[in-house]
């Protein structure tokens, strides 16, 4: 299972977890698996067909927009990072 690391603003939708595991051989499958367990994440990450434009997704530190997007292959040891825009200067 791939490891999915959640940015702080997404954690409330995943029971407070900082990282979770999810199954799938492509990014699209991994995310779908993630939403089955944490439905609230879907609204934040992928409300429609595509990943929302204010969330950046990295597979092994590479931006998936420059890989194959949702078709990007994901291996069991890969790490996916979900990084929404952050504004706080506080």
């Amino acid at each position: 299972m791939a490891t999915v690391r959640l940015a702080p603003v997404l954690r409330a939708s995943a029971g407070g977890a900082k990282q979770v595991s999810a199954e799938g051989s492509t990014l699209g499958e991994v995310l779908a698996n993630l939403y089955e367990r944490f439905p609230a994440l879907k609204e934040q990450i992928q409300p429609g067909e595509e990943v929302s434009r204010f969330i950046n997704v990295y597979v092994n530190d590479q931006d998936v927009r420059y890989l194959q997007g949702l078709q990007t292959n994901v291996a069991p040891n890969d790490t996916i990072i979900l990084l929404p825009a952050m504004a706080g200067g506080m």
Partner: protein
Amino acid sequence: MGKASREFLRQARRQVPEWSPAQVKEALTQQGEAKQDVVLIDIREKHEWNEAYIPGAIHLPRGFLEFDVEENVPDKEQTVILYCAGGWRSLLAGTTLQQMGYKNVISLAGGFGQWKGSGFGFTMPRTLNADQAKRYSRHLLVPEVGEQGQIKLLDARVLLLGAGGLGSPAGYYLAAAGIGTIGIIDADIVDESNLQRQILHNAKSVGKYKAESARDTIQALNADVKVIPYVERLDETNVKRIIADYDVIIDGTDNFPTRYLLNDAAIMLNKPVIHGSVFRFEGQLTVFKPYDGPCYRCLYPEPPPAALAPSCAEAGVLGVLPGIVGILQATEAIKLILGIGEPLVGRLLTYDALAGEFNELRLFRDPKCAACGENAHPEALPTYTEVCALPAQ
């Protein structure tokens, strides 16, 4: 001068050819036209050089001349013109260089005094005053900064967007480092809940404008720094006018509309923006250098809707966290000003305080970016209104 010194000089004069100021001037002019290749060395002491020197000269004081000359003039065939104040020390130094194997050593007859007396031009170098040399002595000891680097810092103009959690530590350290002009734009008033992290303010500044409280703290630390407070919000009407006056912008705002507004204006005016943000135990920063790396819109083409942007008062943050991120922003500003190191362009550095981990993600320029891509029109992009339900801190 004793008899022996006079004899010593006489011998030196027989050995080392002398050129008049007019001849040296001619050689330098021809060098400018690439017809002749000469190296002009000022061998006087630093305090003499600091007053004035001949344009184009390099400064190698006589005390260390033998040790430093080869690094500067590796070719022993090179024509080397030495000068001092009156033309005597340069004769003696000339004999030394000859002993070291330099074949074409010349002494400027009458030295710098005769040069000036002949009406030729000179340069007065900028130097630090005695107080500055003392205050910034730890910078002067670092070769990558040094006196010229410190002068660059003193000439630099940095704009802080916000005198809050990020702007406070960034501004405080930039002031300590001797950044000559610091602009601070913040329309907010200091609240007690700010003092947990916004170290430019103190218990006595509660109720004052942040921009003015920050100015007072900075000026108590370092009177070299000119602080320009702006008690206003950045908006479409003032953004270009304000950022035009600065070399580097430190973005420590707490809301999306300002970040997009700043991004688009910074691209139009080609100003680097050092972007930082914090949330609870985590922070991130990167440098947006227009056309050198991605911009904010390359990363996030548009802001998130209100429901997904808990960026405001309810978010909470560990007080020390913006300290870390703000000081990293100040560090990046200094690197950009001095032109040293590898700036965080195209790299997002993230810090997780609980894990005690730094991570780095590569960021790419989007060729289709609406702000900095091939067919971009940053001037035509939308601005946004605050999406936060609660007022920003």
